[in-house]
């Protein structure tokens, strides 16, 4: 399993042809307390970079972009009652949705953890 990051601070962890998507610890820290998460419908199809979800915090509503193209296979239903999971466990229990990759080749355009850490350090 390997984890990739986007410049918009989403992460995607890929196992087989399924990718789990969440937002980075840096992103949740910037957004502040998450109050609501709007998730896509299972089966919905997205191109790379499409807005698929919305995360509301006390400061702002932010679009979440799909790191790679594909169709939604599962959403994190726990977030409906506990949106704060995105704050407390952004890397694990606060995942947003799972996507079946249409083109694994798109992963090569993303950052690995080391590159992402360097990217955040520059911000």
């Amino acid at each position: 399993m390997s984890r990739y990051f986007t410049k918009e601070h989403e992460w995607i962890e890929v196992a087989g042809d399924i990718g789990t998507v969440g937002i980075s610890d840096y992103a949740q820290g910037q957004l502040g307390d998450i109050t609501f998460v709007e998730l896509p419908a299972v089966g919905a199809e997205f191109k790379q970079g499409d807005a698929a979800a919305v995360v509301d915090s006390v400061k702002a509503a932010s679009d979440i972009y799909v790191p790679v193209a594909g169709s939604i296979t599962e959403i994190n239903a726990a977030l409906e009652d506990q949106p704060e999971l995105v704050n407390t466990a952004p890397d694990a229990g606060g995942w947003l949705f799972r996507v079946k990759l249409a083109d694994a080749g798109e992963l090569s355009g993303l950052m690995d953890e080391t590159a992402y850490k360097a990217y955040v350090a520059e911000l």
Partner: protein
Amino acid sequence: MNAPNPSGWRPSIGIDSSEEIAVKTASGDRGLALEESLIFELGATGKCGVDFDPPSAEPLPGLAKFLRAAPLDLPGLTEPETVRHYTRLSRQNYAIDLGPFPLGSCTMKHNPRLNEKVARMPGFGDIHPLQPRRTVSGAYEAIAQLADWLLALTGMASIALSPKAGAHGELCGLLCIRAALEARGDPREVVLVPESAHGTNPATAAFAGYRVENIPATPEGRVDLAALKARLGPDVAGVMITNPNTCGLFEPDMKIISQVVHEAGGFVYCDGANFNAIVGRVRPGDLGIDAMHINLHKTFSTPHGGGGPGSGPVVLSVALAPFAPLPMVRRDATGVARLIEESDATGTGHDSFGRMAAFHGQMGMFTRALTYILSHGADGLRQVAEDAVLNANYVLRSLEDVLDAPFAASGPCMHEALFSDFGLAEGFSTIDIAKGLIDEGFHPMTVYFPLVVHGAMLVEPTETESKAGLDRFIASLRSLAERGRAGDEALKSAPHFAPRRRLDETQAARKPVLVWKAEG
């Protein structure tokens, strides 16, 4: 504000927090700081403050099925109880009549009392849109005079007065653009919105059926012209630009932006919410703009809420004028103002996209705005813009040594000063400064907007404030900035002197309690 007392003596005021713990009152009130219950907790149900005749036992024929099965459980209050309830609540509120209201992009200026006097004149205040037209010719003339002034101030060709607020005006402008494109058989799909635009702009474009695409801001806080040029094409219906923008800056490339958008076959919508900075100085028509709304409740001093509704007239270019919504007030060939309900014999209104509202708009706001315009005159309006910009720059330059001002190097700001939370101690943010301002007796500024600035604080003092008033505000904000930089823990729990301590906004958003229920 007041001259110092020559004797030097003054009674101590305010609530000492240590005293607050020591002294408890039975009522919960603290002298003139009045506590107030919810109205549902005040009046017993079944009580009634009005002397109604007892209801007849039998419902009217045919209405029996509409009888309520359960009691309504409305609180029953007498008139004095009701008046006291709302007056006590109003004393816990803050208003432009109590002090500065520096909400950025809201233009919370003083609402002159002369406006109120004129709006209440029976010929304006007591008329109805459905009364015979010959009895309201004076009202049409007042609407036409307001239109004449707004067209002169903006340098535009035509105006739609019926939109009822800024966002409604934006929608009107976009529907004009849509109608114009469809009339030439060239419907388009995309509206471009720069990052420095108002938040309502993308919502309006989406509501009007367009796909919204962002145009990034430059490091100086202005529209990235190269990115805009690169995105223009046959699918772009138009661009929505806020000028002056939400970074508090004028867009100097506006004429070029209009030119390239027009060359690509699109239209330029300008969000006029920040018109106060340029009224009397810049005519948007000269910048190539096709449509712009004017918030009468901002630039032209009509009340924000409470005292009255908003009003968002839209000025239009020659290209968009034929598509303006009905009804409209227009002067005929002899100069007499007339109401046009449907397209008339001369063809006026023939291509109108439809209606935004049942009648011609917010008459009460038209009379207030016209009063403001006539009492200021052209020279006075120009001074409004100059003083608003001067005041904002005074705030910006007085505080840039203690508050990070991300675009301070981009030159003078327009009518609002923008700061970020950079430089505050670890764990301190914009929200702490905003809450601290409540303790200082000011309404907080706009916070966390625009989004392009981290922890944004957008301060719009308006021309209303005197230098002495600005100095008091600056001293307070300076003190808060210094406390935030030093990590003063007391700031984290502000406000301490408001009717309530800091509210849990996260919990309020996650688990909102929207309906009052009786306990038990």
